[in-house]
């Protein structure tokens, strides 16, 4: 699954923007419904390392 699909599927995530060149992911989310740790974890479960 792509990062966009996986993170986008989380409840509370509004937008997911993956910039391949920078190797960054920008996510806007409602922090009442989903927390940063979960988003990071989701990305990691796809097999990527998350820094910062």
């Amino acid at each position: 699954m792509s990062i966009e699909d996986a993170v986008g599927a989380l409840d509370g995530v509004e937008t997911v923007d993956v910039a391949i060149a920078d190797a960054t992911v920008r996510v806007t989310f409602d922090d009442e419904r989903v927390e940063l740790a979960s988003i990071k974890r989701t990305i990691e479960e796809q097999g990527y390392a998350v820094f910062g």
Partner: protein
Amino acid sequence: MTCATCAVRIERVLGRQEGVEAANVNLAGATALVRVDDSADIDALRTAVSKLGYSISPHAGDQPRDMAEQYQGDAMAQWRLFWVAAALTLPTMLLSMFGPDETWSRLAQALLVTPVVLWCGWQFHRVAVRQARHGSANMDTLISLGSLAAYLYSIWALSNGAHVFFETAGVIITLIVLGRALEARAKGSASAAVHRLLELGATEARVRSAEGDQMVPIGKIIPGDLMVVLPGEKIPTDGLVMAGASSVDEAMLTGESLPIDKRPGDTVFGATINQAGRLEVRATAVGSDTVLAGIVRMVEQAQGSKAPIQRLADRVASIFVPVVMLLALITTGVWLVLGNTVDQAVQAGVAVLIIACPCALGLATPTAIMVGSGRGAELGILFKRAEVFETAGHVDTVVFDKTGTLTTGAMSLTDLHSDVPVEEFLRLIAPVEAASGHPIGMAVALGADEAGVDLLDAERVESLAGLGVIGVVDGHEVIVGKEKLLADRGVAIPEKWSAEMGRLEDEGKTAFLAGWDGEATGVIAVSDSVREGAMAAVAGLHAGGIETIMVTGDNRRTAERIGARIGIPTVRAEVLPGEKADQVALLQAGGRVVGFVGDGLNDAPALIRSDLGLAIGTGTAVAVEAGDVVLLNPDPRLAPVAIDLAETTLGTIRQNLVWAFGYNTAAIPIAAVGLLDPMIAAAAMALSSVSVVLNALRLRRYRPDASLNL
């Protein structure tokens, strides 16, 4: 539980419990690893998790199988049986030989020997029945037949005054059990030795937490822990580099002598060795989940499924048993035809069965193997399984892995040509090379050390990947590298040095031009050094009629040069690590019996696949586990010695079988004409046993072939 959010929640809840230092939840495996101190309460943890809506139960985890313990258990059981059997059989023998031939004596013998035949001998009777159901016979059948024939006949003889053979039955069982005990002990010690070699890996890791850095025992690391690995330390467990930069020596996994650069985002593996930089690594897999553990497991599984070669003794027995039974029937038949009573005819037939069973049979193989293995160990060769002795003699082709097996796997400075004296040349060149941090640089630095040249400081050192290195030493601008590097920097290259470079490369070496202040002053070359015994080893194998082949990932030119230097006619170059086993399979498909010598993780499949896997003991742990034979010194000459010793041992086993069967078979005619008495049976048993043991001891005098100069 399928979502990341749930995992995070569970981790958080567990982390808040009393006594929990850290927690990690693995989504894929639906497992949670928790590091606790003594104050933690498992039930409280369970309750906390179930409050979230999940059930959780403790899991025992994989305990590493310890084959050594199992073999030792088997050995002890056999020894117990032996002592019991011996304790009961001895008085039986005494009564039979020196006691009066009266009813009480015979009854006493019967009572003493019954447990021996029925209890100690039970392991043989059970297998004999199983074999019979398949219509086949093996050593157990022969033992069972002989001992039961003697025993049951003797019971019958109690009533009519014929000879009793209770002691015969007892001695048969006792000696065979002794053989089993010796075999089990040999298996146990070989297995234990190999397992000791497997004690790799770090024992503790530096874990960074909010409270600072702490040393944590390796068993307590869980995924998610941030480990700090200093230069020279072993990577504690599989993980992801989060910060820092270094290179890691992964030779134990890949056999590659060059370290791999690691940056944030790269994966590193447990038990590999960190080089000069500092790394912060987040653990991703621990214990039996690591790459190394997985491969060891795979190797053990593959080993377990290797079809065991039917032992020589069993093969002989499978033919002998029907022959003997036939002879017994013929004897009975002839007696009947000659007009004797049924009683007498049966007596003669049974006598044939009794004498035919060779009690030294159980000692024939184990004694030779024990002495052979012991001699091997003295020479630095560990035979892991008895079957090895029987296979080794059939090997007609040996495949050698190159790096680490035929060569040392380490670069060394092999050539140096320059306009100026060696010391002056190295004085300026070596510091720059040494500062490059590259193994080639280390080789040059070592070479300088050996030449007695002290290393000055080098400044502004720049290492240019694949091309060379530049720097400043003692005010001079020094450059070492390929032609392209010098050309790019406007350094003139005299024709003689270009020619020299070409010559060295044709020899399969890695060559560089070197010079300073705008001039090329000379040429150096490094090469993977061939091990001292490689040539003799190959010659030794050829002398024994065994073909040799070398496989390597190196390019064709280098490989062929090195092959020619060592004397190996056939070279398979540019072989990918995963393809070595395929090479072995290819040869086997052509009908060859193939031996493989290797030391790296990528050699493990080939070691397993081959008919005889010879692992270099100083190589990777997994190769050692995969091999059938372990060469404790990285000396290639041990390969032909291992094969020769195994063949000699097999020869001794065959001789032993002759001795074991010989006396008893010679006595069959005596039994057939009805002249058998316990004394004759005892004599046959004693003579055969002694002969077998003495013959096996001759192996102690085995010497490797003189031409090997070992």
